[in-house]
């Protein structure tokens, strides 16, 4: 049974197909509005999530399907000590596909090994969140038209940011990608992420602490939040936190077609003054995320719409 736990579970051609179907849904949503009639998505959210759970649920409803599930472990049998394996075995008899979020890393993989139905990882701790990456990829494709030859700035917490790691993995399979890693020393991209990524043609990394130094050369700027709790001392946090806040001032030298992205939720790392800038794409990412989840559900259920 096919599941998606890691973005690398999907081949480049499968991602192209997912993007193609998502684009078709955007162009003609009515064509897809009944194609999951009679199918049920189980959203098993062992920890709270607003955006991802609602995105999955909206995706399934827009495909004409139904949704069952829970939104926190306290309202599931996990609170009685039931294992992930047992929970998904039971749910397999009620639903056709599972979207699971769990605070423990690897829980969706365990689920996929035990469930008799497809499992989509909707986030497991700080580990993987492949559907966020699918949202990112559709955003890039629609905004830039290609993945090849892009200069991608990754700014903020590159050490713990799972969305950054997954995006690097996904993009490194394309050609001539330049990653510009903008972060304080404390939050640098770990070497293992760089080395574990599939090596595409001419992929390169450049590291800097200074966003303004590099912003003029970027095609994509992927912002993440610099969190206070990641620093060893408060003084370092206070010294650095404003360096990684995007303001209209810092955008002055940026390209006119820069694509500004953020996995959300945002706290203060992108000034609200930028929201109306045509280069701000972070709310479009949310919309594209729903379409990619629709596309993924169709793929995993083996449903094609002609």
């Amino acid at each position, binding site marked *: 049974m096919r599941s998606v736990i890691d973005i690398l579970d999907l081949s480049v051609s499968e991602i192209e197909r997912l993007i193609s179907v998502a684009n078709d849904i955007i162009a003609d949503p009515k064509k897809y509005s009944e194609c999951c009639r009679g199918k049920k998505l189980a959203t098993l959210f062992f920890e709270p999530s607003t955006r991802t759970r609602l995105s999955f649920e909206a995706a399934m409803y827009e495909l004409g399907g139904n949704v069952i599930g829970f939104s926190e472990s306290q309202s599931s049998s996990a609170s009685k000590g039931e294992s992930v394996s047992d929970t998904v075995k039971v749910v397999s008899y009620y639903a056709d596909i599972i979207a699971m979020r769990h605070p423990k890393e690897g829980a969706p993989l*365990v689920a996929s090994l035990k469930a008799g139905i497809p499992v989509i990882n909707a986030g497991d701790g700080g580990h993987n969140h492949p559907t966020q990456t699918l949202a990112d990829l559709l955003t890039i494709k629609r905004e830039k038209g290609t993945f090849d030859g892009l200069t991608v700035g990754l700014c903020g917490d590159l050490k713990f940011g799972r969305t950054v790691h997954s995006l690097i993995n996904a993009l490194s399979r394309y050609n001539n990608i330049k990653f510009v890693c903008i972060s304080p020393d404390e939050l640098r991209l770990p070497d293992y992420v760089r080395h574990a990524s599939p090596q595409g043609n001419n992929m390169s990394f450049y590291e800097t602490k200074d966003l303004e130094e590099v912003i003029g050369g970027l095609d994509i700027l992927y912002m993440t939040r610099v969190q206070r709790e990641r620093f060893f001392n408060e003084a370092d946090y206070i010294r650095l936190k404003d360096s990684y806040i995007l303001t209209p001032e810092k955008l002055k030298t940026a390209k006119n077609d820069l694509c500004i992205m953020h996995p959300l939720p945002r706290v203060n790392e992108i000034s609200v003054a930028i929201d109306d800038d045509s280069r701000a794409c972070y709310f479009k990412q949310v919309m594209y995320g729903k379409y990619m989840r629709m596309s993924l559900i169709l793929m995993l259920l083996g449903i094609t719409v002609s």
Partner: protein
Amino acid sequence: MNIDSITNGIVIDHIKAGKGMELYKFLGLDAYEGSVALIKNVPSKKMGKKDIIKIDSLLDIDLNALGYIDPNITINIIKNEVRTEKYHPELPERITNIIRCKNPRCITSTEQELPHIFKLTDKVGPVYRCLYCETKAQ
């Protein structure tokens, strides 16, 4: 010290001195009822000192898994008093329940019945990572 030669069996040679008992236990030889010799601190030109394990039977055991513990060991297969095979174990692609994941955020930390499985991600090192959370084995 005399150890009888083997008619049919396995000789695990060039074990790093002091590691013999670990391999002995890993192979479950403490529960094996046949003849086994664990010879410690044998003088070796190449290694200075080494351990050797001799098993007087062609046991069906996963010798390649030994590669995780000590990839430099030599495995000799003896049949009718003749050595028919001699090789270094390859690094196993997966190891199960040999080491435990130390990541407190890993699902194995709360679901006790799950096997602790590590997969080989880099032969240089070598690097093994937890199948579930991808944390590097220590």
